[in-house]
């Protein structure tokens, strides 16, 4: 899962995100967190100054997490909140690169708040790490468990398919069950929940995943009763099915880990509590959940022997094979392609874009979907590549001197026909990578439901434009930031009903999630009608942290957007803007990785709105091709402001070295591309060359090049894992003549050119950089 060697700060960022994602009872995320802490401890020794402190903090943190997993400490939201603060504290120390006693104290205090005592819970600081690692290295404990593992590892391909399908099934179960809350009598929905369970049961049985099979089977029985009218579909059942779904997900996730990383990651899951719970419900009892569910490390596997009726079931299964197949297909289809009719969803009122008519009547229209097939993403990329190559080859043939000499009208006509077909082909190939944002949005329904239940708030989630399409590769990366923003809106934006009524609002708050296309961008907005940001507090905090000065005059909008600065809302005091003590900068970073922008607009008392702007696709950018000596580079058009030929009266030097140009009354540093990239340029004299003025995060730079060659939409290609992270280069592309051109990465470029610039200037720029 975790690739390559990471920097401490990267791991911390990831940890911060994870801690935001944790829901009580969701132990799989805690597991991921554990893994990250382990890495942190592992690499922190290299961070010379703070290494030992970090390692110690990591170990304590680790031990606290383990206690949560073991059920010794509560996995409540408050506790995770404290853990979030702990992470912030570690981040703070890393940022300052020195460990101050007060930071460590805050860290320890927060851990203590969780119920974990540094030092007293664990004998001797040194043992902490060892203990933690020892139990981590074999999460499942006993050897007997590991010996059982290969049981289901025999057919890895089938298993991989099962894992993927099961995740999809679980997702559809969740969506449907939330749907059911609004129309509990809809048989079609009950069927839609029943079938995936049936499929999971069938396939897991076939693959010898006994525990999963058992749990799915029990739940299926319960649902069968509901389907046959023996039991009503009430909120008890819904809650149980939801939690079973979550548990199944962590079980399947574990199998995935085992498959990817090896048998030692195998984890025992104790399903008995869930089984009892479901059975009690089935018998008409009411659910009494004893304790938080936990994994059981050493106990021998409690596989319930497949009794006679199970065996019968297997036979039934054989007969139902076709049926199962069909279901697999159906849900796959659902996952891949957006329905044409805009299915209506629940906890929320969903308007499908312009089509704002009444919800479609009856279950028939609900799941009518266009036919589709699932395609391996690699094949798709292969197709896109081949088509791109085709277009290039076509131009090359057309421009061949011999061919272009033939002034044959038929040939010209045929060529234009050919270009039409190829460009059509290219468009279609590109469109295949796009998927509706619906799936990502739908995951938020559950989030809002859980959050509002937990905080005792009434929240309506309204979704608009879920059929907006985004690049497939963006879907996963946009999920985490979206969760963070939604959580902020519900936790801190929307007030509790009493408070809302007091200010004359309806007791139910609204969180609006919308997506639409605008220009070359996909815009995602998260809007709530809560209390809005407290701009004055933000200002105070920014001054306190030395981000702005007392007499700085910033507009409200600029002030509000300060919350995106790193380390800003790590503050424990601004309760109404800070999340779990982890900064909004993780959102900003995630969005910027996708070459997007994020900003917040807020009206005190009226609510706040967060706007995320993303490029339509990650695959193509609009660029200007420039030449430096024999090399050609592509500068993203979006960053370019103008290009000029410098004149001596606007040219200045600093200490004879640093060069600047005065452009529209601003001093803009010159970056000589040939120097940064170590190539020989045609013009050394700036007055013969051309400069391209670019802007990145509010910083202007003049890039000196030999010539502008033209504007072109280029397909971004990675230089391969082999050459990732080259400073100043974002990727490559194939130019019209078949050669590779490099796409410039302005952030990296500026960083390289600045590497000898004094620190003060940089710091100042961080602030001004956020004004836009």
């Amino acid at each position: 899962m975790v690739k390559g060697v990471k920097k401490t700060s990267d791991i911390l960022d990831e940890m911060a995100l994870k801690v935001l994602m944790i829901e009580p009872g969701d132990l799989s995320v805690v597991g991921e967190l554990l893994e990250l802490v382990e890495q942190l401890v592992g690499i922190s020794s290299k961070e010379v100054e703070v290494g030992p402190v970090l390692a110690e903090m990591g170990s304590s943190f680790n031990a606290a997490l383990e206690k949560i997993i073991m059920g010794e400490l509560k996995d409540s939201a408050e506790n995770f909140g404290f853990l979030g603060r702990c992470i912030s504290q570690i981040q703070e120390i890393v940022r300052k690169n020195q460990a101050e006693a007060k930071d460590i104290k805050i860290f320890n205090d927060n851990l203590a708040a969780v119920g974990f005592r540094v030092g007293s819970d664990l004998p001797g600081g040194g043992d902490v790490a060892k203990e933690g690692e020892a139990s981590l290295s074999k999460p499942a404990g006993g050897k007997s468990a590991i010996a059982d593992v290969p049981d289901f590892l025999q057919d890895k391909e089938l298993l991989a398919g099962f894992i993927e399908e099961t995740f999809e099934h679980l997702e559809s179960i969740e969506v449907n069950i939330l749907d059911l809350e609004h129309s509990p009598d809809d048989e079609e929905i009950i069927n839609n929940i029943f079938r995936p369970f049936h499929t999971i049961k069938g396939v897991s049985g076939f693959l010898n995943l006994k525990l999963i099979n058992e749990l799915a089977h029990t739940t299926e029985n319960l649902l069968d009763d509901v389907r046959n009218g023996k039991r009503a579909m009430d909120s008890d059942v819904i809650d149980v099915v939801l939690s079973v779904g979550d548990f199944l997900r962590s079980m399947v996730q574990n199998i995935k880990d085992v498959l990817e990383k090896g048998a030692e990651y195998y984890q025992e899951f104790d399903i008995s509590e869930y089984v009892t719970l479901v059975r009690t419900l089935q018998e008409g009892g009411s659910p009494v959940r004893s304790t938080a569910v936990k994994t059981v490390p050493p106990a021998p596997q409690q596989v319930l022997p497949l009794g006679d009726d199970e065996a019968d079931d297997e036979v039934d299964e054989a007969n139902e094979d076709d049926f199962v197949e069909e279901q697999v297909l159906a849900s796959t289809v659902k996952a891949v392609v957006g329905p044409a009719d805009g299915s209506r969803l629940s906890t929320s009122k969903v308007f499908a874009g312009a089509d704002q008519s009444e919800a479609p009547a009856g279950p028939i229209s609900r799941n009518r979907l266009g036919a589709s097939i699932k395609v391996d993403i690699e094949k798709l990329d292969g197709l896109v590549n081949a088509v791109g190559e085709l277009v290039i080859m076509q131009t090359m043939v057309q421009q061949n001197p011999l061919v272009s000499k033939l002034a044959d009208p038929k040939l010209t006509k045929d060529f234009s026909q050919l270009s039409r077909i190829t460009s059509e082909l290219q468009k279609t190939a590109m469109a295949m990578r796009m998927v509706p944002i619906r799936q990502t949005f739908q995951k938020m329904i559950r989030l809002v439901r859980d959050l509002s239940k937990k905080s005792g708030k009434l929240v309506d989630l309204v979704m608009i434009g879920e059929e907006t399409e985004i690049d497939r590769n963006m879907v996963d990366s946009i999920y985490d930031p979206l969760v963070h923003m939604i959580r902020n809106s519900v936790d801190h934006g929307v007030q509790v009903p009493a408070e809302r009524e007091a200010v004359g609002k309806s007791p139910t708050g609204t969180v609006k999630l919308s997506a639409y296309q605008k220009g070359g961008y996909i815009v995602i907005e998260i809007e709530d009608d809560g209390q809005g940001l407290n701009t004055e507090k933000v200002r105070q905090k920014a001054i306190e942290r030395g981000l702005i000065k007392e007499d700085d005059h910033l507009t409200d909008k600029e002030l509000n957007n300060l919350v995106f600065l790193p380390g800003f809302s790590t503050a424990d005091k601004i309760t109404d803007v800070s999340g779990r003590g982890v900064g909004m900068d993780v959102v900003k970073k995630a969005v910027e990785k996708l070459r997007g922008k994020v900003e917040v607009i807020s009206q005190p008392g009226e609510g706040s709105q967060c706007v995320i702007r993303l490029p339509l696709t990650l695959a193509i950018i609009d660029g200007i091709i420039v030449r430096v000596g024999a090399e050609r580079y592509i500068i993203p058009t979006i960053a370019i402001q103008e290009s000029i030929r410098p004149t001596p009266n606007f040219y200045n030097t600093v200490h004879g070295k640093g060069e600047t140009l005065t452009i529209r009354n601003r001093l803009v540093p010159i970056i000589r591309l040939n120097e940064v990239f170590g190539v020989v340029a045609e013009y050394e004299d700036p007055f013969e060359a051309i400069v391209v003025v670019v802007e990145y995060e509010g910083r202007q730079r003049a890039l000196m090049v030999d010539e502008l060659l033209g504007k072109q939409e280029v397909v971004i290609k990675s230089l391969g894992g082999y050459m990732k992270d080259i400073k100043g280069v974002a990727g490559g592309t194939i130019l019209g003549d078949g050669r590779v051109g490099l796409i410039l990465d302005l952030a990296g470029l500026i960083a390289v050119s600045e590497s000898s610039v004094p620190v003060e200037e940089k710091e100042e720029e961080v602030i001004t950089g956020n004004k836009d």
Partner: protein
Amino acid sequence: MAAKDVRRGENLQVMPELAGKYLTFVLGEEEYGIFILQVREIIGIMEITSVPHTPPYVKGVINLRGRVIPVIDLRLKFAMAAREYDDRTCIIVVEVQGREGTIMVGMLVDSVSEVVNVSGTEVEPPPVFGTKFGSSDNILGMAKINNEVKILLDTYKVIGEGVVEHFEKK
């Protein structure tokens, strides 16, 4: 997987597990071999776009039918003298399993010779030269065929992620 077995066999005295078909090529006066299943294709020299901030032996990137792949000069990689490219110069495109999926890399060599069948008894472990000759880490073994010695390379180690780490340190 055969390729994996090959790697593990490094320190054994007899190396039957290195038996198999190898593509041999020439660098200066020496002849080298790489495991044939790791070879994807052989192409003639073509225009290479240089990439900044990379070690000298990384010549740059090429367009392999729509895919951008890096090219390394094996002479420079092994600290041998550079040489002008001519029409016998080839790029051997190899594919190995990396940590994040397959890595495709082009290796520039003086010329490609042939595909030979190496039997296990013909292979000896790599000689130990001590540190002044650099490490023989990326050599799997030495094959003696018809009185000629062919150096069998560990493709993964030659082009593999060791290089990536090297980049990061820079």
